[in-house]
């Protein structure tokens, strides 16, 4: 093991998942982020989601770009391989990893700077490719790691710690994702674990690109008054548009829902998502409708949260490529080589 392993103390009382693993088995190294940073809460939710889904830790692949947010793969599922790539380029590395091994559960962690500025191109193209990836943007409106400059998600009129006011319109990752063709699009808040964990589970089970834009305040550079990405502001203007229950394949839907209120979405692996909309007019299965509805609320200064759009039938990168079921990385090169017997025929065309 590449880390000096922590002495393992088994607490007989700790709950185990279907693999007999406890939540501790899904934890990682000690966080070095600022105390109170939203990103640590996202990490905790991810630990919970992976544990509840009982994903074998070694089957997880953690990928990230650069930023405080992108450091967090070191803080969860230490039994999984992780790759902290270069700034804004995680989607390409994730594409390669997923191409090589389709059995991996790829989790990409990014920031608003990482995804919406330097990495905007890769972010959009990974969605367009419908890569099978859970993609989290830990969105704090600033570049945390380089000490608080505005990011492209900073809202118009929001004030930096040093007093500067942002004049440019924000790029909204959710609207961008709707436009670029993502097939699972959600928004949540690092302070709402009850909403975040089921969304992460659904995103991991969704076959295709699953984006969760997580509002995740930066306590050091963007949590003051007049900031629109502070804890206080987010709590005030955050508005769940859809509440979602995640029901694993083997389980029955137990909660009773009122007629017309619930919308059931079945994922490839048989999991069931039950969506309860807070507004009759909203349709999370309709891209154009979702776009307009979210846009309208944003204009009124309201962040809609929950699973905002989903297309469970989409075909992900390997479906489109018609790749073999076995991971490409598991095919030995000599088994793929056509050998000397095939060569004369191949070369005949060049004679």
């Amino acid at each position, binding site marked *: *093991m*590449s*880390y000096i392993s922590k002495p393992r103390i088994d607490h007989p009382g700790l709950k185990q998942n279907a693999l007999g693993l406890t939540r501790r088995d899904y934890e990682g190294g000690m966080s070095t982020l600022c105390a109170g940073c939203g990103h640590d809460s996202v990490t905790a939710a991810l630990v919970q989601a992976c544990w509840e889904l009982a994903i074998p830790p*070694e*089957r997880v*692949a953690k*990928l990230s770009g650069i930023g405080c947010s992108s450091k967090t*793969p*070191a803080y969860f599922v*230490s*039994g*999984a*391989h*992780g*790759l*902290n*790539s*270069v700034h804004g*380029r995680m*989607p*390409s*590395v994730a*594409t*390669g990893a*997923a*191409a*090589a*091994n389709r*059995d*991996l559960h790829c989790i990409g962690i990014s920031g608003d700077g990482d995804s919406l500025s330097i990495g905007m*191109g*890769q972010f959009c*193209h990974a969605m367009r*490719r419908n890569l099978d990836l859970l993609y989290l943007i830990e969105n704090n409106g600033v570049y945390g790691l380089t000490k608080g400059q505005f990011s492209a998600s900073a809202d118009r009129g929001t004030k930096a710690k040093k007093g500067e006011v942002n004049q440019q319109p924000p790029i909204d990752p959710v609207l961008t994702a709707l436009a670029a063709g993502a097939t699972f699009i959600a928004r949540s808040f690092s302070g709402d674990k009850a909403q975040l964990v089921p969304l992460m589970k659904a995103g991991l089970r969704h076959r295709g690109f699953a984006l969760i834009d997580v509002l995740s305040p930066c306590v050091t550079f963007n949590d003051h008054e007049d900031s629109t990405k502070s804890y206080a502001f987010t709590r005030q203007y955050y508005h769940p548009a859809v509440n979602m229950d995640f029901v694993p394949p083997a389980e029955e839907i137990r909660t009773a829902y009122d007629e017309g209120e619930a919308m059931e979405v079945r994922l490839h692996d048989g999991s069931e998502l039950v969506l309860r909309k807070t507004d009759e007019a909203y349709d999370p299965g309709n891209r154009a409708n979702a776009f307009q509805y979210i846009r309208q609320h944003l204009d009124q200064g309201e962040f809609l949260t929950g699973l905002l759009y989903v297309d469970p039938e989409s075909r992900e*990168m390997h479906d489109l*490529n*018609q*790749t*073999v*079921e076995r*991971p*490409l*990385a*598991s*095919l*030995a*090169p*000599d*088994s*793929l*080589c*056509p*050998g*000397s017997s*095939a*060569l004369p025929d*191949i*070369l005949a065309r*060049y*004679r």
Partner: protein
Amino acid sequence: MKSIFRMGVPVVGKNFFPSNIQGLPTWYEIRVSGEKHLARRDGVDVMVAMNAQTYAEDLACVVPGGVLIYDSTWPRSGELDRDDVQVLGIPLSAMCNEAFDGVRARILMKNVAYVGALAALLDLDLAVIRQLLEETFASKPALVEANLKAIHMGHDYASTHFACPLTARVEAAEDTAGHIMIDGNTAAALGCLYAGATVGAWYPITPSTSLMDAFRSFCSRHRVDEASGQRNYCVVQAEDELAAIGMVLGASWAGARAFTATSGPGISLMSEFLGFGYFTELPAVLFNVQRVGPSTGLPTRTQQADILSCAYASHGDTRHVLLFPANPGECFEHAVAAFDLAERLQTPVIVMSDLDIGMNDWMCPEFEWDDDRHFDRGKVLGPAELDRIEEWGRYRDVDGDGIPWRTLPGQDVRGAYFTRGSGHDEFARYTENGDVYRELMQRLDAKWKTAAGLVPGAEIDEHAGAAAGLVTVGSCADAALEARELLAGESMPMDYCRIRAFPFGEDIRGFLERHEVCYVLEQNRDGQLKSLIVNEFGIDPARLRSVLIYDGLPVSAGSVASGIRAWTKNEVPA
């Protein structure tokens, strides 16, 4: 050209084309020589001038005693004559307009008709031409007939109006048996197929595009399961080169053999990731099919001007393994070797081809494949090996060769580690400790020394008595060898050393030390190979004399010889 090849005569063809789809002139130059020379010579014996705009330029290229063929449908200005050149007019357009319907067919057939005329003038075998047409248009027999009609038209006209064949003619021989005509990009793609590559990621750029096209085409024939139609490969057209190299690194990290193909501008974009790959020790295979330029340059012309930018690509102390194929045969071999080296050394490997090799058809011996060839996957630990190891560190040099052991995702929690481009210790843990960083960089340097012993050695040819050496690289080879023959005839014998890889091995150092003076022949303005040699070996630059050819055209023997002669003329007596 292919008919000449089929007649058993060594031949090579070079296409000169602009970065444009239609509407600008292109040239195709064919070299045929009884001495089996395969480089460009200099000067044209028989010119077919099909573009009125470039007529004067074309005429000027013809050597005294040569022949110029032109379309005599339209009158030609008398000023454009040369006394020492035989000018033959054939009314190609007029003939084709009469014989064929439709604008497209008429234009196409004009180009076929002159081949017929050439066949008469050069004594090419019409049966061979017919055979080739039948193979090319196997599924469209009507086209065979139309083409043959045009060929005969040209042939008959030339036979009745001129004294055929010319003195410069092609004589059937037996010198091409066991050879093929293939371009380097196709050959490299075939190497990737044979090496078991499964992931390809690229962004189209001339002159590398046909490499991935060829790979896909080979895969569609050899990598699709017949029953299920499923593919055991995945080719991704990336949004740009930054993404392409990211995908290759991600796939290699996850255990697949992955590669990309690009050219200079793509390498510039890939630089940050190349440093990441070097520092985190991930395999990657890149093909840099070099073209001319800073910036967009001359995208359809050839050069070797990315030697330094590839050798030291990226910020910080970085160095990359380079392989320099000289012809399509070596593209095939180096492609396979590149995957083995990348996995053995856990680092990016760049195959430095160029437009001349990549896009022109070269005559080369048929490729061979040894079914017992060992695929070197390098040092990878699986669950079984981890069972036996007490404490494993991803970046620990346990074997003393600078190469640590790696693990792949998806296999075993005991093999998990965090790959990071920031400072890390032997256990892949984050650190900014200066001593740890220095030790890491020293180990990477030790790995570099190991690499020098694993890469292909130079091709060296030495004879007693030669005081000078000719050092070159890649597609300069054939012209260099022919120039060496020319100069030997002028009492200037030279030994020969063709570098095939970076890091440079001791064989190259020895060669340089044994020669008072070495001419370093390469295709760029700044003498990049020379700089690299000086930098790596600390050799006295005064002993190296650059011969630099950088007009964007494939090197000709004549230009190499005159480049070397120029040095000797300028030699100041002591």
